[in-house]
């Protein structure tokens, strides 16, 4: 098991795997996203309470989920990198950060677009909104730290420490914000928790969520590939591939 893991972690093997999986995930993601968009926008019924504007949910909720999922991936890879010095894990963490930040931003933007018709304001200091905003700061801090350190090895380890410190902090932030918010205000605005969602709305939502996940993996793998090429430009296998024109 461990040996398998190590062989995969060699960038050459990973590169080859990514070459296969990337397009595969890409196709799957594209199918799911098309289906999800179609069913979400045209097939799913209009919400009797919110009208058409609720359809933002098909972008908003998947991106909100992805924003958290990507941070977990990043933190997990950072731990792998710090403990076992797996360079591949560092690469995955590095390329995931901007994508996670983008998902977070998308969740914030769509949520805020949705908030205008729903609550009448672009922004409320609601618990969930606030902790999503802080998550964006964590991503930006992570990327800024990486960008500020010239030496790549040092940058990678410093960023990994920060990601791990952040992962300890995320649940703390989450609960403190929730608690802070309910302390002052009764749950007047938490319309999120409408427990039942109709199946015709749920299916496209899940399709979109899965599609977003595949999109993330496709994009992450292709970014990882280009980083591997950049870092290993001096290695023979890269040179060979370059000569044979199949990068």
């Amino acid at each position, binding site marked *: 098991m461990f040996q398998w893991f190590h062989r995969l972690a060699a960038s050459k093997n990973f590169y080859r795997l990514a070459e296969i999986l990337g397009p595969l995930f890409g196709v799957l993601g594209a199918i799911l996203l098309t289906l999800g968009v179609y069913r979400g926008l045209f097939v799913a019924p209009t919400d009797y309470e919110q009208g058409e504007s609720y359809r933002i949910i098909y972008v908003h909720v998947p991106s909100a989920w992805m924003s958290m999922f990507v941070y977990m991936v990043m933190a997990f890879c950072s731990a792998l990198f710090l403990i076992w010095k797996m360079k591949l894990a560092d690469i995955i963490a590095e390329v995931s950060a901007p994508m996670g930040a983008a998902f977070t931003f998308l969740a914030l933007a769509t949520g805020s677009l949705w908030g205008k018709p729903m609550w009448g304001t672009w922004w409320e200091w609601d618990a969930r909104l606030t902790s999503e905003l802080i998550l964006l700061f964590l991503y930006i*801090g992570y990327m800024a*730290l990486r960008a500020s350190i010239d030496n790549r090895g040092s940058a990678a380890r410093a960023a990994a420490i920060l990601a791990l410190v952040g992962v300890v902090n995320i649940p703390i932030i989450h609960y403190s914000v929730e608690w802070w918010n309910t302390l002052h205000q009764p749950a007047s605005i938490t319309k999120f928790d409408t427990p039942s969602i109709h199946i015709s709305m749920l299916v496209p939502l899940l399709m979109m969520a899965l599609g977003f996940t595949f999109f993330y993996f496709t994009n992450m793998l292709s970014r990882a590939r280009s980083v591997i090429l950049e870092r290993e430009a001096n290695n023979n296998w890269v040179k060979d591939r370059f000569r044979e024109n199949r990068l």
Partner: protein
Amino acid sequence: MGGAFWALLKRDMLLAFRRRADWLNPLVFFVIVVTLFPLGIGPDPGLLRDIAPGVLWVAALLATLLALDGLFRSDFDDGSLEQLLLSPQPLSVLVLAKVLAHWLVTGLPLLLLSPLLAVVMQLQVVAIPVLLVSLLVGTLTLSLVGAIGAALTVGLQRGGVLLALLVLPLFIPVLIFGSSSVIAAASGFAVDAQLYLLGALFLLALVLAPPAIAAALRISTE
């Protein structure tokens, strides 16, 4: 081990004593930020009283933050930090001594001055003891957590603002529990829950921060 801890603590206190600016400045910054608010917002006493706990806590947080930048920087600039890393003593203990000295020099005076500013901001008198306790535990936690950021950014030319960016998200729970304890006290509610949570955060930071700081310092001197 204890010897090196005390020696480092003593050295840092001596240095702070030599350059009075070190402990005077965060203090004055604290005062100035608190006084800026009435100027920016307008002198309505009701409004001021409502925002007093928040402003006091935010000002304390910003003052701590500003002071943090200097925690390892001068040691880094003159090469003392390398020597610290090459010390035979365990690095996390030495790091703890530095954080403690830093808090004694910057956090403690701020704490002692806060009742005065609370009065200026029209905060209810009953809330002042809670303000003190929350600031005591809170600024200690901020110093510990912030030291991780300071260690990560010490090698960078303009670490100051990057430091702010890195640690402010980590400071938010402390800010929330700290200020909400004071708000609760001012409204006459119980504050045990908030203070226990602050204490728990402090213990967590005390255990986890020193090794993280030590690791970050080793990276920064590469």
